[in-house]
Structures are given as structure tokens and as C-alpha cells.
């Protein structure tokens, strides 16, 4: 299983996220791998999330290569930086896209400090 599908599976299982309690909208991910396009539709209704494999319409569409999507799912990409350098393309509501970006993990930094999370 790819990191990308594992990511969407996690969202499906979670089903909701309290950080999105005042968020409504839909985001479609168009992930291109050569000639193939894999599409995932994420619908959010006041924190409840529904994930499906769908090419249905969405208020916001996020396009990326399979390689970039995998890196995102592994937490190796800063989404806003990737948008600024043209690696991730967002059409629609960028604000919603940035909020969705919080669902992606971030790879932990080098363990050289006793950060607050470890106390």
C-alpha cells in the first residue's frame, strides 16, 4: 500500500477531526502518476470527514505528482512552500487547502533538544 492510500485510510477510520469543527467544504486530490490520475474526494462537514475515490466536483482541487503526494503523506513536504514553488497546484479555496494541510504529518526534526512534547 502506498503512503498516500494509507493516509486516506487513516482519515476514513478517524471520521472526524475537532480542529475542523467550523470548516465545511470539499477537496479533491488529483494525483498523477505517468498517464494515470488517481482521484480522492474529501468532504468535510463541521469536522466530520468523508473520504471516497471519486472524480466528483469539489470546491477545491489539489493537484500533485504521485511522488510529491507520497512525500506529503510521509510528512516530508511543507505544503505552502510546495505551492509557492509550483509543485502542488491548488484551484479554489487556498485557505481550505492550507487547513487540510494540517492533516498531513510532519517528519520529526533531529532529536537534539528536549522539546516541550517530551517533558
Amino acid at each position, binding site marked *: 500500500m502506498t503512503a498516500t492510500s494509507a493516509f486516506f485510510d487513516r482519515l476514513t477510520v478517524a471520521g472526524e477531526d*475537532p*480542529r475542523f*469543527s*467550523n470548516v465545511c467544504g470539499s477537496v479533491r486530490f488529483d494525483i498523477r502518476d505517468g498517464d494515470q490520475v488517481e482521484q480522492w474526494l474529501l468532504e468535510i462537514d463541521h469536522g466530520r470527514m468523508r473520504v471516497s475515490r471519486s472524480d466528483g466536483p469539489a470546491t477545491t482541487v489539489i493537484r500533485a505528482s504521485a511522488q510529491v503526494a507520497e512525500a506529503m503523506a510521509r510528512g516530508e513536504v*511543507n505544503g*505552502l*512552500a510546495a*505551492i*509557492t*514553488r*509550483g*509543485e502542488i*497546484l491548488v*484551484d*479554489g*479555496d*487556498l*485557505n481550505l*487547502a*492550507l*487547513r487540510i494541510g*494540517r492533516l498531513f*504529518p*510532519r517528519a*520529526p*526534526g*533531529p532529536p537534539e*533538544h528536549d*522539546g*516541550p*512534547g517530551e*517533558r
Partner: protein
Amino acid sequence: MRDIAGTVACIDGNTFMVSDASGDVETSPATPVGLFAADSRFLSRWRLTVNGECMTALSVDNSQYFEVTFFVVPGAAVDYVQADVSAIRRRRIGPDLTESLTIFNYGERVMDLDIRLEVAADFADIFEIKFNVVDKVGSHYTRVGPNELRLGYRRATYHREVVVSASEPAEFGPDGLRFAIRLNPGEQWSTRLQAAMLALRPDGVDLRSALRAQRPDDSTLPASLRAWTAAAPTLDTESVALQQIYQRSLVDLAALRFAPLSLGGAAVPAAGLPWFMTLFGRDSLLTCLQTLPVTPSLTPPTLRILASLQGARTDDVLEEDPGRILHELRYGESAAFEEQPHSPYYGTVDASPLFVVLLDEYERWSGDAALVLELEPEARAALAWIDRYADLNSTGYIWYRRRNRATGLDNQCWKDSWDSISYADGRLPSFPRATCETQGYAYDAKIRAARLARTVWNDQAFADRLEREAAALYDRFNRDFWLEEQGFYALALDHDGTPVDSLSSNIGHLLWSGIVPPERAPRVVEHLMGPALFSGWGVRTFAEGQRRYNPLGYHNGTVWPFDNSFIAWGLRRYGFSREAGRIAEGILSAATYFQGRLPEAFGGFDRNTTRFPVRYPTAGSPQAWSSGASMLLLRTMLGIDPHEDHLAVDPALPSIFERIALLDIPGRWGKVDAFARRRPDQP
């Protein structure tokens, strides 16, 4: 980094052009002049010549921020100008740069004119200019077409381009364009030059196209500025100087409004020209706090964008934590390739408490409980960040120690230069550090959040808890930071809790936050207004006589108008009206030496010695929180403060003003007027 005195700016949010007084741009790598958008320089050369001669300015009109008119003649500046040929360059900044060029022949001969515009684009990132980085990783290209010149820069999928064109036939070359014209006596000739700036995605769409679709086109800018000015209260005063400062501040606040990519067109204040033309958490929050009585429309979008970009994860490069409010957001190449951590960077400890402070202050003015409900999750997360993530050694304070060791900030308070926090003898404390004013903000945030919890969020238990925590913080702070012998608060605590014993302007912010017991306030005020801190113009950032004091030290001795405006607010809170008036008088008098436009900072030299405020070499101007300072000083002189559903007025004018009236102050009361007249018994 060179001084940029004598430059002329044309601004629309985070798009701006800085040129010399003739309208020309000629850059050396480390100079922040040129045409900029989204933190990148799209024109590094824009130079007009007529028959081989460059232009000299006769006059410049920049009364409207988005438009500048240059009246110029060919030839170097000499005592006597034989100006048969003259020209007007009318420049306007919108999504693109447009410049109308008109050439006049007032001589008696037919003139054949070779008019050239030299054009170059280095696509330097603002940080490459700041740090004087010359070599770029990507590659430049030049494409000369019959009707345009395209200059571009590519680095992998990052692509920026500027397209220069003209309304009249021109000969385009790789270094610019030229017109060959013949003018009879009394004739004139015009062309409209355009430089379109593109931030292109691989599919050819501009990154900002969704935003541009929502943005009014530039023909509506004059109307938008009129509407902005009309919506603000009217100032009525006998002081021509104060009138000029007020109008200049209003226009500059309008100029610095920009619509961040992710906000669907709503405008927030950018911090300042030329280095900070982007969203800063601290600057935008403090600017909104200063301007609530005059331009409250800035606040809701500022709170909303900071909420939507609030930290959600732990990231040591961005210094992100759940609940943390961002420090700085950039769109340039260095942010795009993560050479700088600005996508966004979270290395600030005061934006999170100030977010809560502004939310409450805004509700007190506007009565907009809906926004307080909408942002309840983010406000709670910011409060949780204070206790959970900022208290690095479990002592009950907000501490900082950078986690991004390559490019993070050493000092994450408003005085964020590397040497701003020192002992009186010059030693630098170790990390983590806890600065005093940040604890004041945290105290104020808890007190204010308790009010919101009680009145809007309907959570009595949370309100009680916040008030208990605030009371404990008040006691702890007054025990650990107070230097009884000196009679002021330590600038900071060292990593081991030792007070950093220097005298600084930060103690004035403590009055604003209300964390000073009334019986200690007179000693604090005595220091603020004493000769070591008060220069005659304002309170210095750092007191004279201490090892690192320097009247031109960025945070070690200069006077910052924004800093002084909050100190004046704090002085009024504790009943020191006369002292607040002295600060208002000093800062507003200084403004008259800057044509009504307060710079970011000016020299800390004694007023009696220099007689005029000494310009700080690289000070930004206009600067949002300096424009805001005039507004907050007006508030403190009028003594206006919301009380339930009405606006209380308690004026105290310094002696240079006879009468100040602010008419149609918007708020939950509708619109009301505040009048102040100097009383004869006042000095």
C-alpha cells in the same frame, strides 16, 4: 545594506516599487530598490534616458500611495537648467506596473529624440538582497519579441516572469526598449509602459490568479482610497501638523493593506517597507490594536488569517507547535525552497497571547460576539500553547529558545535582533530566556479570555480557571522580575531564573498589560520618564549608561514610535496622564520632521542636543505600527475607552494642542464624537 534616503515608493500592499527621485531604478545587489511582488524583485533596472542623458527630478508627487508622478528634465542636476525638453512619468502600482510617459518640447526648435528605457530583472528574493547573496541557483532567460520584452527566471517548477510592453511602437532589445520621435515646438508625445509580473505554475496559470479575480482592478484604487478615508473618523484640530500626521497615517495604512493568497481577497496590514512587506503576526496584531478606533475593518481579516494558519503540529524548522500564532509568512524563492523557514515561520512568543488580547479588545469596541464564537477554538488553542508549549522549564512563564538552529531567530520577542536582550554590563543571558513584556501579555490574555469565556463562550469554569492562573502569574511575576533596589522590572529572566538587570522600554508595556501593582507604578514611571530612558522625543528602547546602549542601536537605544504608543496607553491606564501627554507630544513633534510619516525607529539622541530626530539609517517607512502609533496616541490623548455600550471620553491634552476632536468614531454605540480641549490648569 545601503541607506535608501531620497527614494520614492509606490505601494499597493505587498507589491511596491522603490526608485530614486527621478523615477529611475538602478540596483546594486544589496539595495532594496526596484519593483517587488510576493517577496521577489521583478525589475532591478528601469532607467530612462533622452538622447543619452539621464533624468533629473524637478518635483515628485506621491500624495496617493499607489501613484507617483515625477516631473523630470534631461541632464545632470546643475544650477541652471535649460529645459526645452521635459517629461512627466506617472507611475501606478496595481497587479502590474504601469507608467505613462509624456515628453514635451517647449523649445523653439524641432527636436529629434532618442528615448530609451533600460530594463533588467534579477528576480532576487528579498532575503538575497538583505543578506547580499549574489549567485542564484536557477537560470535567467530573455526573450525579445516585436512588441514586448520577456525576462524570466526558472528553478525547477518555480517560475517568475516580467513582460514589458508599450502602447506606442518601440524597438525592443534584450536590455530594454527605445523610441525614436520627432517633436515640433510646442508638441508632446506619450506612451504607456507596462510591466506585468507573473508567478507562474507549470500549467501556465498565475499562482495568484484566484486572488486577482476577486481583486478590484486598479482603476478602482482612487475610489477605494476615498472610501477608506471616508469610513475613518474625521479629525478636527487647530494643529495643521496633527492633521497632516493623521491623514498620512490613514493613507499609509491603506497602502500597506494586502490580500494574502489564502484569504479570499480580504485585506490585512503588511508590516512595512521595504523589508517587511508581508504578514507578520506580531506587527499585524499590534497595528490592529492601535487602530481599532479609526480603522476597525483591519481586525477581523487579521484575526481570521492568523487563526487559519495557526500551528497544528510540532515542527522544528518552522518552530511550529499546536496553537502557536505565526511570526512571518513569505512567498519568495527562499521560502519556496525552504532555505528560509517562512512557510510560515512560527518563531515568536508574543503573537499567541496578543491574538487573544486583540480578540477581546475588538469585541469591546465592536460588540461582534459572532467573531469571538467563530474563533473560540483558535483562542483556546493559543491559550493552551502558553501553558503547554511556551513554559519550557515548568516555571510558569513564556520562555523561548530557538529550535531551528540554522535560520531561526535568537530572540523571539518584539526586540528580535541578536543582541537586544543583555545585562546592564553587556553580558548576554543564556537560553531559554523569558522577557518581561511577554509575561504581561500572557497575564492580559488570561484576564481578557476570562471575560470572553464568561460573556460569550458560556464557560464559567474556564473563566474561573483563567482568573486563578492570571492571579498566580501576577504574584509570581512580581516576585521574580521586580528589582527592588533599582525600582524597575528586569528586562528578562536568564535560563536559571536570574533577573537580567537592564533598564528598558519593555517595562512600559507592563503598564499597558496591567500586571504592575499600583503602588509600584510611580517608580516604574519615574524610570520611563527619567533621562536615561526618555530622550525628549520618546522612551528609548534601552537606557543610556548601560554597556550596549547605542543611540543608533536597532533595539539598544533608538526610539520606536509604536513602542511609545503602547507605553502612553499604559501610562493612562495607571493615571499618569501628564506623562502620557509628554510622550504624545514628543512622538508627534518628531513626526513633523518626517512629513507626518513616522518611521519604524529614529535615533535615541537627546532632544536638547540634536534639536531634531536623527534618522535611523535603514528604518522602514512607511511602517504599519508606526502609522498606527499616531492613531493610538490620539486615543490616549482623548482618553477614549469602550464601557459596555458607550464610549467613555477622558481627555488630557499636552500643551502643544488646544483642541482635538475625533468625529464619528465607529463602534457598538454606532458613531460618536470625542472632544478634547486643553484646560488652562494643565501645563
